[in-house]
Each structure stands twice: as structure tokens, then as C-alpha cells.
């Protein structure tokens, strides 16, 4: 290895080399540090005085693969340039033109050269097989460079690099070869040599031609010709110099003014329902597109809303207002901007709204919602739901304590007061009858009317809903006092009302009209005396064709039990005439001419066999009659000494019925026995009403003057299980059990219907039919043994 030092005339920079490991694709060539040499390039001439020159030089140096060059300028700063170009070692070098042209055009080529040099050296690295080829190339290179380099520094620069690099290569190769042989002694390695195509990297054609080249002569001739031409140009006529001038016109400013363009922000939010609406209303676009200036689309009110707006009386021009204002259906942020086309029409707006049906409905719903909030705990108790306390409520401690105290202290059965149906309309009226709607268990019809012949005033029927205990949903005013009520089971909206003057009316509770659907006042056969009881009875067990279906049966004070048919007006057919047995006392056969009928006060059809029914009369007799046999009674039960106010079959035991009377007694009968089995008396008060409990066979309720009693035969047959005294002066007059829950309603003479919940009443799993039977059996057997026929308290 020859190390040549380059003498430098003027030291501009110092180049320091360091060792560097270079990984080449074809192998690992370790760069020996011993190769390092100091090259102090001499910088001479103007072309190298600038800093850029140094950079160029540095590049040339830095791009030699053997050493890493670190360049420091005169200030000692590291200005080592980064190589711009890292050639692929396997790449053949491009064809080279003249490497060292004249100075002034040499910058690019200067950079070329080092890259070339790099390439050559690299090329020489690429493989031992190409050694000879590249060696010759590099040799030619060096020869070329030596020829063309005018600057001795460059020459000096290049040569040592090349020579050193070459020698290095050779040395390196030798070393590597030995290593390789040791490693792969036994292996046969196939190596393939391919020549890549020529890759042009840069081609700048030279401007100058060398003297030796072939077309030097031609070039020289051309050059000469040109100089001749230039000389000839001076005084030649062929060449005339001419100049032109353009006019610079005076500039003039011109202005144009336009209307200010107002920018309006418009936003549309397309939502699912927007698209749905516009799709549906596509066909309905009418004059209502006028208003929706800023609307998203031409929204048109539904035809349904339009139609119900048209119904209430309203001026026609306000219709358009309504239609326009009702296009708000979609836009959310545009409310403030909604314009009313006819601002004059503000007044009817309010009226129309208030009169619309929808508003009434909404009001009704709202009222119920408000009331639901208030009555929620009571209603929950009614419906046997757990009563949940309002977590936000600031509970009045006292109220709560008293309530819970009562419930805790008494484990005995009692009636829990829930709420009262009352309003100012019903104040002072006597509740005469109550009935539940067959279809909607929340609907209650209450009839108000005096039961005795004095103080007769126009009657009232109110349909209360559980959802609104403060105001009835329907109010029907009747001419005379209401004495009987019943809802139809087939047509759940039909309510039959029996009046004190004997009229029977059927109301449709779906409407608020005051007139009944049908009235019996036109009927020739109408009752002459108060209708004491009404019942819709469903005869569907094997009767003649016309008798099928539901029929209205009534019993009245004129002693007739009639069946009413709704066929072009109410017509009645007498089922039975309650003949007074007094006639038979005369030991005469019943004389049809002298009809003495006992006023009938109540009746009840057998729950299982709808042909058999019981009728109670004012004389205290209870007759068992058959539907198909209207001449005579099947049986007569005599025990009461006063008018029988109510007779009712037990819903569970088919042969048992109860009767109550004004002789202070309640009797329990068996169908086949002509004497009562049990009698219940507590106090000397008239019993107005009794009813079996729909849940438990042994429980029934009774309403006396001043008291409400609940009897439970399991517990005791002597005393009522629950006695609830009403306020003094107020008499409970009607009793009703709730079919689904364990509540009982009591109507009193002040027009109030109180809802009580039966608390702590022993609820059996079954309907306790057996218990009732047992009780009766024991009583009968005891009677038998003791020889008593009936018991009186």
C-alpha cells in the first residue's frame, strides 16, 4: 500500500479520517484503519477559495468508502457534508464524458467526479470476478483523469485514492478469499454472473470537444464560420438594427357598484322522521307552502288534524292560519322565526284551541295524571301493589305515624279507608245503587236517588273512574230518583237505569249525551211503581230462539217481574207476577180478577241455572220462580217479617242464598230447606244491603243503618268480623265488593262512595266452599239435635 501525502500549498482545511465499517452486499469488507492516510488537499486558485469548494472537496473525500471523512473548517467546526448520493455498490458506473472540463462549468462535474471515483472504487469492491474489468476501467479512469486534470490538486487527490483503493481492494480480496475457503471447503457454490443493463445516472454533454476527436475539424470550421459572421455583421446591409416602441396609454380608474350580497346561513337537519313526513305528505302539497319560507320542506298538516279543526265552529279564514302555523312539525330551531301569515287572526287562535276535541282529551288525561300523582299510594293499595314512597317527598311525620300505628296495632281485621268518590254534584244525594262495568273493572256507575217516597228529587247517575276520584267521567241527569242500575255484559257501554217513577232507560256511556238510547216511557206496559232492581241476564242455556242472548229483567213495586226487549223501542213481557199469598188466606182459589200483587223489591237469578230465580217481596216472602213457568212459584220461603231488601245467591255454593230485610235480620238459606239455616243480627238496625264476597265463600258484607259490617263465617257466625261505624247522621245505603281486589265500596246517604280495603282478613287459599258447607252442616245438625228450626239472636 502506498501512502502518498499530498503537499498542500495553502491549508484551508484539515481533513480527519476515521475508520468505518462498510457492509457491502457481496461480502463484508472490513475497512482497515491502516489505510487511512492524511490527505491534505491543497487548495489553489479562485475556484477553491470559497467554502462551497471545500464542501465539494469534502464530498469527494467523504464519498470514498474506505474512510469516514470529517471536515473541519478554519474555525474548527465540523462541516462534514453528508453524502448526497449513496450509490449501489453493484451498479455499473455510467458512461463518462470528459471528467474535468473547464473551471467555470465544472461544479456539477466536480461532484460527478467523486461519485465516479466512488463508483469505481465501489465497483471494484463488488466482486472478485469483476476485478479485471474494473481494474482496467479504473486504470483508464485514472489515465483519463491524469490527462484532463488541469489542477494538480485534483489529480493528486484522485490518484492516491484510486491507487490506494485499488491496492486496498486487492489486499482485501486476498484476505477475504482465504477466509471464505476455510469456511466453505466442502461446499460447491454456484455463482452466476449477470450483467445489468446500463443505468444512466447523469449525462451532461460536453460543450467543448477535444482536439483529438474526429469531428474536431468540423467544430473548428463551424466556430470559424461563426466568427466570420459576427465580423461581417458590422457594416453589412443585410443586418439592420431596428427598434420599436409601444405606447403607454394613460390609465383610467373605473368603479362598479353592486348590491351587497347578503349571506344567509341555512342549515337543514335531516332526521328520519323528517324524511318520513315529507315522503308521506308529498301528495298533499297545497296552498300551505306559502308560509314555510324557511321551513325545511313544504310541510303540510295532517289531514286528520285539519278535519278535526274544521269540526268546531270557526271562521274559515282562520283555517289558513291554523294550517300555516301548524307546519312546525319538524323544524327544531326555527320556532322563533315562524311567521304567521295573517296576524289579525290571533284571537280565534285561542278559542279554537280551547274548543278542540283534542284539547279536551288532553285536559282529561292531564287531570288524571295530576290525580294519579296525588292518589298514587291509595290506588296502589287498591290494586294490591306495593306502596312505594316518593323518595323526594318531605314526609309529614305525623300523618305517617298515625297511619302506620293503626296498621301495626291492629292485627285484627279492619277496613282501611282509601278514598272517597264525591263531588259537589253528588252532595246530599242518597246513593241507591252501585255497579261495576263488566268490561272495564275501573269504571263504576253510581245511582243517586231517594229510596223512600218523600224528598223525591231528580236523580243522577254518575260514572266514576278509578283514575279520577274527584270528578265523575260521565254525568247523567234523570228526571226522577235512580233506584236501580246495571251494566250490560254483552254491550259493555250500555247502562240500564231504573227510576223511581217506573221508567227504565238505557244509556250509552260512551257519549256524554244526556238522553238515553231508549226509554221505556212510551211503553204501554211500563211499570207504574219504582223499579227496584234491574239485571241483564244472559240466557244461553237451551231456550227458544228469540230468548237467546241478553235480556233486561226488572222487578218493580207493582209486583211484576218483567223482561224487556229492545226492539223498536222497549217492550216488556211479564215473567212473573208476584201474587200476594194473602189471597190464599181467604181459602179461595186464586181469583184472577182480583189481582193483588205484592211489590217486589229484589230478585236474583241463579248463577248456574239461569232459569231459576229468587224474588223478594215487601211482605217478607222470598219466592223461587222459574223463568219458563210464570204462573206459580216453585217455592216460597217465609221467614222475614219485613220487606226483603236484598236476596242474593252465593257465588260459590250453588244452593245457598242470603237475604236481608228491614226486620234487622240477615238469613242464610239453603235452597231445599224452607227454613233459614243461619240468621245474623247485630243490633236493631235495618239492613239495607248485603253482598257475598266474590273471593271467599264465607265472607259477606252487610250495610246497616249507621254501620258497615263484614261477616266471616269461619271466624264467627254470631258477630260480624269487622264493624265500621260511619259518621253520625250518615247512613251507608249500598255495598259493593270489587270483583278483582279485596276492596269494598260503601255508598251512603250523603252522596259519598267510600272505598275501603279489607285488611287482615284471613284469606284462604281456596274459596272456602267446604268451610261454608261445614258451617251449614254443623248448624243443621245442631239444629236437628236441639230440635230448633231457626235461630234468633
Amino acid at each position, binding site marked *: 500500500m502506498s501512502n502518498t501525502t499530498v503537499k498542500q500549498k495553502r491549508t484551508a482545511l484539515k481533513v480527519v479520517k476515521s475508520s468505518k465499517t462498510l457492509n457491502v452486499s457481496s461480502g463484508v469488507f472490513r475497512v482497515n484503519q491502516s489505510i487511512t492516510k492524511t490527505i491534505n488537499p491543497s487548495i489553489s486558485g479562485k475556484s477553491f477559495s470559497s467554502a462551497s469548494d471545500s464542501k465539494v472537496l469534502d464530498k469527494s473525500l467523504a464519498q470514498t468508502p474506505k474512510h469516514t471523512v470529517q471536515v473541519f473548517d478554519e474555525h474548527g467546526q465540523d462541516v462534514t457534508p453528508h453524502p448526497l448520493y449513496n450509490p449501489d455498490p453493484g451498479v455499473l458506473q455510467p458512461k463518462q464524458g470528459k471528467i474535468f472540463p473547464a473551471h467555470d462549468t465544472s461544479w456539477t462535474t466536480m461532484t460527478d467526479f467523486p461519485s465516479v471515483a466512488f463508483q469505481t472504487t465501489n465497483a471494484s469492491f463488488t466482486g472478485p470476478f469483476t476485478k479485471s474489468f474494473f481494474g482496467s476501467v479504473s486504470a483508464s479512469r485514472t489515465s483519463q483523469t491524469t490527462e484532463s486534470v488541469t489542477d494538480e490538486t485534483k489529480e493528486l487527490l484522485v490518484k492516491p485514492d484510486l491507487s490506494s483503493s485499488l491496492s486496498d481492494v486487492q489486499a482485501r480480496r486476498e484476505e477475504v478469499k482465504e477466509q471464505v475457503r476455510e469456511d466453505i471447503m466442502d461446499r460447491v457454490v454456484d455463482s452466476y454472473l449477470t450483467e445489468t443493463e446500463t443505468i444512466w445516472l447523469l449525462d451532461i454533454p460536453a460543450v467543448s470537444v477535444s482536439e483529438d476527436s474526429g469531428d474536431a475539424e468540423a467544430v473548428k470550421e463551424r466556430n470559424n464560420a461563426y466568427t466570420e459572421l459576427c465580423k461581417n455583421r458590422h457594416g453589412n446591409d443585410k443586418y439592420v438594427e431596428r427598434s420599436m416602441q409601444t405606447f403607454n396609454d394613460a390609465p383610467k380608474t373605473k368603479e362598479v357598484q353592486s348590491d351587497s350580497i347578503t349571506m344567509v346561513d341555512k342549515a337543514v337537519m335531516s332526521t328520519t*322522521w323528517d324524511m*318520513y313526513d315529507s315522503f308521506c305528505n308529498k301528495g298533499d302539497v297545497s296552498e300551505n307552502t306559502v308560509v314555510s319560507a324557511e321551513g325545511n320542506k313544504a310541510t303540510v298538516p295532517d289531514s286528520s288534524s285539519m278535519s278535526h279543526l274544521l269540526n268546531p265552529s270557526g271562521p274559515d279564514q282562520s283555517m289558513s292560519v291554523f294550517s300555516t302555523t301548524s307546519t*312546525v312539525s319538524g323544524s327544531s330551531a326555527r320556532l322563533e322565526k315562524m311567521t304567521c301569515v295573517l296576524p289579525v287572526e290571533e284571537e280565534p287562535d*285561542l*278559542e279554537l*284551541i280551547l274548543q278542540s276535541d283534542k284539547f*279536551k282529551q288532553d285536559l282529561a288525561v292531564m287531570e288524571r295524571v295530576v290525580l294519579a300523582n*296525588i292518589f298514587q299510594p291509595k290506588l296502589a293499595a287498591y290494586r294490591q301493589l306495593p306502596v312505594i314512597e316518593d323518595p323526594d317527598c318531605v*314526609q309529614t311525620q305525623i300523618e305517617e305515624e298515625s297511619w302506620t300505628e293503626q296498621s301495626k296495632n291492629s292485627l285484627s281485621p279492619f277496613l282501611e279507608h282509601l278514598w272517597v268518590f264525591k263531588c259537589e254534584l253528588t252532595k246530599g244525594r242518597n246513593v241507591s245503587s252501585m255497579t261495576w262495568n263488566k268490561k272495564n273493572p275501573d269504571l263504576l256507575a253510581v245511582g243517586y236517588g231517594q229510596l223512600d217516597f218523600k224528598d223525591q228529587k231528580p236523580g243522577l247517575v254518575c260514572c266514576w273512574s278509578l283514575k279520577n276520584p*274527584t270528578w265523575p267521567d260521565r254525568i247523567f241527569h234523570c228526571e226522577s230518583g235512580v233506584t236501580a242500575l246495571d251494566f250490560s255484559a254483552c254491550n259493555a257501554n250500555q247502562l240500564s237505569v231504573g227510576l223511581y217513577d217506573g221508567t227504565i232507560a238505557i244509556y250509552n256511556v260512551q257519549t256524554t249525551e244526556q238522553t238515553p238510547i231508549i226509554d221505556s216511557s212510551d211503553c204501554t206496559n211500563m211499570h207504574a211503581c219504582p223499579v227496584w232492581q234491574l239485571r241483564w241476564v244472559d240466557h244461553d242455556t237451551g231456550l227458544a230462539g228469540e230468548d237467546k242472548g241478553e235480556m233486561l229483567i226488572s222487578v218493580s213495586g207493582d209486583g211484576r217481574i218483567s223482561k224487556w226487549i229492545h226492539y223498536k223501542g222497549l217492550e216488556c213481557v211479564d215473567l212473573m207476577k208476584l201474587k200476594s199469598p194473602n189471597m190464599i188466606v181467604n181459602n179461595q182459589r186464586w181469583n184472577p180478577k182480583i189481582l193483588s200483587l205484592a211489590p217486589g223489591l229484589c230478585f236474583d237469578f241463579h248463577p248456574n241455572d239461569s232459569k231459576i230465580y229468587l224474588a223478594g217481596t215487601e211482605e217478607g216472602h222470598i219466592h223461587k220462580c222459574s223463568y219458563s213457568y210464570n204462573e206459580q212459584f216453585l217455592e216460597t220461603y217465609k221467614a222475614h217479617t219485613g220487606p226483603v231488601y236484598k236476596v242474593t245467591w252465593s257465588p260459590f255454593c250453588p244452593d245457598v242464598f242470603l237475604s236481608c230485610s228491614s226486620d234487622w235480620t240477615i238469613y242464610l238459606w239453603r235452597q231445599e230447606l224452607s227454613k233459614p239455616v243461619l240468621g245474623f243480627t247485630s243490633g236493631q238496625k235495618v239492613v239495607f244491603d248485603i253482598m257475598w264476597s266474590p273471593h271467599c265463600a264465607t265472607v259477606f258484607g252487610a250495610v246497616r243503618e249507621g254501620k258497615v259490617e263484614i261477616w266471616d263465617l269461619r271466624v264467627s257466625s254470631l258477630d260480624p268480623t269487622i264493624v265500621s261505624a260511619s259518621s253520625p247522621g250518615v247512613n251507608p245505603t249500598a255495598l259493593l265488593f270489587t270483583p278483582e281486589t279485596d276492596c269494598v265500596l260503601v255508598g251512603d246517604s250523603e252522596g259519598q262512595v267510600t272505598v275501603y280495603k279489607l285488611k287482615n282478613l284471613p284469606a284462604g287459599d281456596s274459596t272456602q266452599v267446604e268451610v261454608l258447607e261445614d258451617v251449614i252442616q254443623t248448624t243443621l245438625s245442631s239444629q236437628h239435635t236441639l230440635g230448633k228450626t231457626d235461630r234468633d239472636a
Partner: protein
Amino acid sequence: MAEVEETIKRIQSQKGVQGIIIVNAEGIPIKSTLDNSSTVQYAGNVHQLLMKARGVVRDIDPQNDLTFLRVRSKKNEIMIAPDKDYFLIVIQNPTE
């Protein structure tokens, strides 16, 4: 008409009802039992809430529509019955 007035009076007289407001389609209160500033506040705010709620309901199913909205808060409950042409607001404190 009288029936409507009566019903409104009845609602007003129920326990805990603080106010009733009837607002027309444009958001202008047309009838109210509260003072003016509260009325305007309720009307404006409820209107926006209503639009949003209706949007929610109809977005999920465009054939559906909002029929009633109740907002229960610590102090009271706001019940809103919306319609195309109006909406009815009742504010109640049921526990007082």
C-alpha cells in the same frame, strides 16, 4: 267551552298544582295561571325540550309520535301534553 274552563279550574284546584300553561304552536303562551316571567320561561324551555323529545321518538320510528311527557324533578313535576297546535303544561308538587 264552559266544560273546558271547568276542567282547568278543577285541575288548578287539585292538591299541589302550581300552575297550568297553555302554549300555542308558535311557542307563545296563550293562557296561564302563573306570573308572566315564569310563564315565558316555562313556555320557551319546554318547547325546546318537546321538540327534542318528539325528534327522539320519531327518529326511532317515524310512525310513532309523542303523546305525553313527564319530567320529575326534586321539587316538582312538569307534565306536558303536546299536540300539533298547542301544548299544555301543568306543574305540580304532589308531596306538599
